[in-house]
């Protein structure tokens, strides 16, 4: 009896390395921070009271919530119709559109933020175009205000709204809508009564994701907003920079965390019950207008029934109406895609500028900013450091994360979901909070200002991404294939190497991609743990964006734009290579 029991204990053990890193760098310091904020061992709420007594603090807190809410709302308003049109598109077109949404999502956040400076700046794209057209006589104040913050954040968050929505919408059985229409529902009623309620789980998970991530935003509001547009993260960062008062910082951090936790608790905790609840009809009152409307429509429909046969004929010739609607839809989707891709495109064009300043469109074309990048050892050194750290993070977190995902996959569902939630904390919680605890954690190991320390900090988030992606792959993996291998005398290790690993390789590659990109784009946590002695590429870029904006950064940025594209290509090639014989065997089969 003891041997099978030992075997069943084993899988969770594979998650030990992941949890060791999580606890040492994040978990234990988090607990210490929390105790500090409570004045342990005295235990009082004095720090929290002090926080709320200061008007400025409360203003920033509300501002953070307000900005997050507005961004979430805009993302829903733009994202829902986009996702709807994407989900209704033919499969190939849909795949292409999804790739177009994923590419900006994978593009460095710094690059995209920088691009908005190029687009919205006083001598940027929009102002120059308007001046050129003579529509304005002096540049409009498009940047360093709340509006710019919204534009930048929406562009960054929109993919995170669209992707879950598309996933949910694709899985909705369209024949349900057809059925509703066959029962006399007008297209709009069929949509509101059938499709929309079924798509709500997607709206919910998308909104939750966007909102919680917005709460922790730091870079974009700091770069695009005015002085009065600070979010709580910026505020905490400023506190850390000026006077590192542990108790005060810890208190602000836990208030920020508290909001995120409350939102997750209210909307997130019953995610499991989402499906069931979404199907439940909405409360009567909120539906009355719609129901009344559809009742009127249905009534007039009855009246018109006798004419309908004749009208059908006429309808066949009303194609122009339909064509107009198709064009309108296409224009909408294309605009959204342009909005998503614009920053990358602008950055690439900017990088070839011959001008000295940040002027768009560039006055001429040259490679001088690339030269200036490659000739400046502070840039190349930073890039090298980032590559070094990125590679280390990718290797470490891909191995540790894959082991953890594999172990968790073989654990009871309850334990699995708790442990996964813990592993995901570094990417769900505001980076400034994670950064501060990583700082404390590394301090106790004497790793502040070392590459090892930075790599460990990045690994927190990178492991989370690997766990998410590999777990998703494992969830669709047929466990019976492993049993089959075992029945053929393959031991556990052989089975993993010969069967499991080749089949989940695309997931592992995807995880590695996210791990690398995460490390290669990290500013907030890195700036806290680098101890001013190590310059990574993102740190150097961030410094540049804040102080001297010269187009060298555009050259760096446009190189970074290439990165996700190259990775996607690499993944595609491995995926395609994993089934070459499938392609080859087909002609044989035909012969």
């Amino acid at each position, binding site marked *: *009896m003891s041997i*099978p029991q030992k075997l*069943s204990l084993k899988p969770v053990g594979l998650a030990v390395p992941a949890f060791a890193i999580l606890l040492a760098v994040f978990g234990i310091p988090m607990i210490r921070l929390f105790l500090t904020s409570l004045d342990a061992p005295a235990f009082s709420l004095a720090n929290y009271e002090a926080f709320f007594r200061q008007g400025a603090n409360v203003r920033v807190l509300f501002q953070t919530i307000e900005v997050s809410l507005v961004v979430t709302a805009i993302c829903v308003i733009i994202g829902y119709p986009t996702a709807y049109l994407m989900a209704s598109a033919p499969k190939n077109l849909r795949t292409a559109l999804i790739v177009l949404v994923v590419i900006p999502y994978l593009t460095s956040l710094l690059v995209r933020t920088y691009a908005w400076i190029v687009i919205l700046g006083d001598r940027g794209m929009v102002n120059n175009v308007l001046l050129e057209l003579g529509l304005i006589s002096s540049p409009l104040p498009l940047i360093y205000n709340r509006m710019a913050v919204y534009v930048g954040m929406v562009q960054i968050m929109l993919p995170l709204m669209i992707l879950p929505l598309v996933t949910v919408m694709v899985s909705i059985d369209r024949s349900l809508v057809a059925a509703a229409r066959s029962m006399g529902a007008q297209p709009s009623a069929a949509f509101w009564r059938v499709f929309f309620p079924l798509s709500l789980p997607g709206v919910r998970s998308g909104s939750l994701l966007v909102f919680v991530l917005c709460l922790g935003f730091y870079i974009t509001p700091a770069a695009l907003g005015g002085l009065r547009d600070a979010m709580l993260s910026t505020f905490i960062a400023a506190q850390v920079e000026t006077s590192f008062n542990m108790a005060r910082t810890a208190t602000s951090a836990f208030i920020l965390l508290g909001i995120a936790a409350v939102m997750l608790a209210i909307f997130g905790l019953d995610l499991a019950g989402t499906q069931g609840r979404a199907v439940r009809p909405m409360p009567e009152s909120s539906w009355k207008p719609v129901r009344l409307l559809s009742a009127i429509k249905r009534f007039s429909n009855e009246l018109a029934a006798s004419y309908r046969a004749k009208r059908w004929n006429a309808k066949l010739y009303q194609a122009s109406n339909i064509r107009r609607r198709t064009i309108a839809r296409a224009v909408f989707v294309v605009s959204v895609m342009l909005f998503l891709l614009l920053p990358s495109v602008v950055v690439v064009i900017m990088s070839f500028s011959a001008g000295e300043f940040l002027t768009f469109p560039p006055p001429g074309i040259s490679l001088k900013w690339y030269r200036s990048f490659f000739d400046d050892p502070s840039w190349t050194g930073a890039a090298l450091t980032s590559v070094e750290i990125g590679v280390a993070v990718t290797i470490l977190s891909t191995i540790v994360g894959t082991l953890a995902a594999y172990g968790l996959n073989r654990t009871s569902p309850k334990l699995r979901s708790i442990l996964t939630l813990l592993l995901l904390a570094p990417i769900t919680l505001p980076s400034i909070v994670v950064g501060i605890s990583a700082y404390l954690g590394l301090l106790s190991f004497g790793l502040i200002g070392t590459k090892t320390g930075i790599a460990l900090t990045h690994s927190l988030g990178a492991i989370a991404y690997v766990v998410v992606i590999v777990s998703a792959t494992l969830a669709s993996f047929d466990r019976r294939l492993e*049993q089959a291998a*075992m029945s*053929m005398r393959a031991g556990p290790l052989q089975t993993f190497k010969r069967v499991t690993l080749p089949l989940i390789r695309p997931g592992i590659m995807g995880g590695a991609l996210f791990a690398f990109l995460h490390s290669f784009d990290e500013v907030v946590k890195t700036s806290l743990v680098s101890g001013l002695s190590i310059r990574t590429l993102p740190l150097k870029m961030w410094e540049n964006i804040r102080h001297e904006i010269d187009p060298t950064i555009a050259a760096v940025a446009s190189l970074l734009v290439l990165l996700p594209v190259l990775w996607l290509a690499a993944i595609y090639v491995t995926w395609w290579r994993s089934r070459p014989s499938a392609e080859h*065997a087909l002609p044989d089969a035909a012969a």
Partner: protein
Amino acid sequence: MHIVEFQEPVQIEFRNITKLYGAVAAVNDLSLAVRRGEFLTILGPSGSGKTTTLMLLAGFVAPSKGDILIGGKSVAAVPSYRRDQGIVFQSYALFPHLTVRRNLEFPLEMRGMKPAERIKRVERILERVHLNDFGDRMPSQLSGGQQQRVALARALIADPPILLLDEPLGALDRSLREQMQVELKVLHKEFAITTVCVTHDQDEALTLSDRIVVMRDGRIEQIDAPEMLYDRPATRFVAKFLGEANILENPGFEIESDMVQPSGTVAMLRPERICVAPPASPKRADSHQRQSVIGTVADMIYAGPLRKYHVRVGSTPFVVREHVAAGQPVFRAGDEVRLEWLRSDVRFVSA
């Protein structure tokens, strides 16, 4: 049906095996012995513990209580990958990233066989299952029947002493299933391999098996040769589960039998053992061996070579099945008929 000699030694033995999932006993105190070369089928309704029994034997599930012996030795401490069994999974579980040939080589490779010998074996088995031209295809490029044959070939290629089949033909359509039943039977004989098969399909069980285990709620309800199981079911559950049965519980008339009805049993008659005749038709020569009752036809269903009558005798419903033959009278709903059967065809099953 090839009858397994009684002399053959016991190959697999379950001793009081219980498997608990929480408070639910998926398998409950099950004891069972399978002889070498036997084809044993486990049959039962959904959730009765068939798959669990098979997985216990395969070593993918550990028993909560009891012991399993293979070849006389306990395998409690033997992990699945050392048990030396060929398994055909319900969905076949062919490795999707390997060609048919590489799939077939896998078990040989794991046993450390040399490449030259492996290739020879693979060719031989491909020939045996009529898939010579398909060795380089990926599993996804095969039809369901072809995949099934690859799965079978992969389970047999290393000559394991035991073959386990989990609903092996479940995914095939009817005609292919019948064809594969024949194939499976031939292979079983050829490889002389002890086989344990789980199925939903009664026909499959009746055609293939030396013995059938009928399971219910994790326990064995009856274990017997197919003919015995059908002809002499021990319980009402088995009678109803295998084919159709008329259970005559308080039928409103006395049931005549050559036997004394044991207590706690009910009488059972198979529908094909009953004849339908016009009420006034002349008595047969062997009428003293028969019992006859008068009833009313409620319904007639015509099903190809068969006719099925639902007849009510008083308040007792009867199902009667007869082969369509020339000159036979046909009755309609409402007609009065006489049902008759041989007394020796009445069975008593425990209630």
